[in-house]
């Protein structure tokens, strides 16, 4: 997407002090992720072989980034992210979560968006893709949204509007059709304060 912050080759990034959690039930996939983030300079890496193990560790320590496989037996990556956002411990509730999946079905992408993850990465993992997402999370200024049905980074950030093919209206949004007024009309003073006519000298 053109509006994402561009990661230049000469940009300096410091990942040395990050506490990173990696979650995958496939040990070789964990090795791959560990080598990638080690190459970026990360020193503190905690590896978890399941979502349940990750949950236990997230309850105890604080992390700066979680990279988790989406499909796992037991607690999967989507459920882990959703648990973190809705009822995770204070120290990790807002931690950036990058979901990783081998097969990106449309339904998986929608599920990743709705579980509160920051980004979804398609395998095979490449260092550029991972670092770029970390960079985006660090650069962007997304609000955190909390409702009965969703908790996580704003899914409609940077005023880009809804994704193509989506209506994009929240349940609390007004109807697109103009109906009868539901609140009292504005008073003249209120209208004037909005219009603010001022004299200008030409």
């Amino acid at each position: 997407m053109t509006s994402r912050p561009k990661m230049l080759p000469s940009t300096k990034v410091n990942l040395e002090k990050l506490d990173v959690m990696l979650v995958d039930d496939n040990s070789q996939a964990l090795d791959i992720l560990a080598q990638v983030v080690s190459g970026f300079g990360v020193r503190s890496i905690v590896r978890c072989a399941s979502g349940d193990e990750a949950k236990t560790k997230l309850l105890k320590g604080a992390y700066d980034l979680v990279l988790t496989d989406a499909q796992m037996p037991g607690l999967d990556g989507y459920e882990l992210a959703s648990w973190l956002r809705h009822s995770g411990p204070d120290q990790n509730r807002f931690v950036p979560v990058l979901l990783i999946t081998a097969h990106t079905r449309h339904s998986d992408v929608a599920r990743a968006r709705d579980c509160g993850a920051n980004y979804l990465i398609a395998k095979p993992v490449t260092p550029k893709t991972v670092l770029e997402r970390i960079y985006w999370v660090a650069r962007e200024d997304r609000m955190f949204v909390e409702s009965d049905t969703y908790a996580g980074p704003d899914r409609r950030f940077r005023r880009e509007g809804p994704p193509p093919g989506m209506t994009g209206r929240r349940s609390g949004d007004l109807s697109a059709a103009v109906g009868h007024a539901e609140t009292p009309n504005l008073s003249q003073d209120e209208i004037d304060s909005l219009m603010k006519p001022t004299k200008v000298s030409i």
Partner: protein
Amino acid sequence: MSQARRYRVPNRLRAMLFDGGGKQVNEALADAEARLSTLAEACDTTVRNLIVEIESAFGPASRGRERSSPRNLYNLVARIIDSSISQASPGLAEICASFCDLLDRCEEQNRWDWPAVDVHIAALHLLSADASLPAAARLRIVSGLAQLRQRRAEAADSPPRSGSS
């Protein structure tokens, strides 16, 4: 109807990433690639073993393959994607993605599409066995599989003709 609350949260990543130290992006990427290359041999072995396992359990010569679930094959194919880091077999991950799409459809329709499965297995075998296969040929195989999947999906969705088997 739920009421949404929107608020800012501290961006710890930003504070750490841009604190002045560390390394340049191109250096970080090169270091990560170098570390990944130490796993290339192990990953290639895993991929080869998985393809052998797939051929043995789901290939045309395997007995009783129809009794297995498409999900079992899907899991094996997804594990190839997990381990596809080497550039030795470009196109392999794309074939696996196509294979996963096909197996998703098989699972949804609760029906194997053996001709399409066999073509995907053959393509996996070809790409992993012949490292000298030119990039253009690999690309043709990947796009050919996409066309095949499209045709098979359309055929599966259309009503059966009388007299067809």
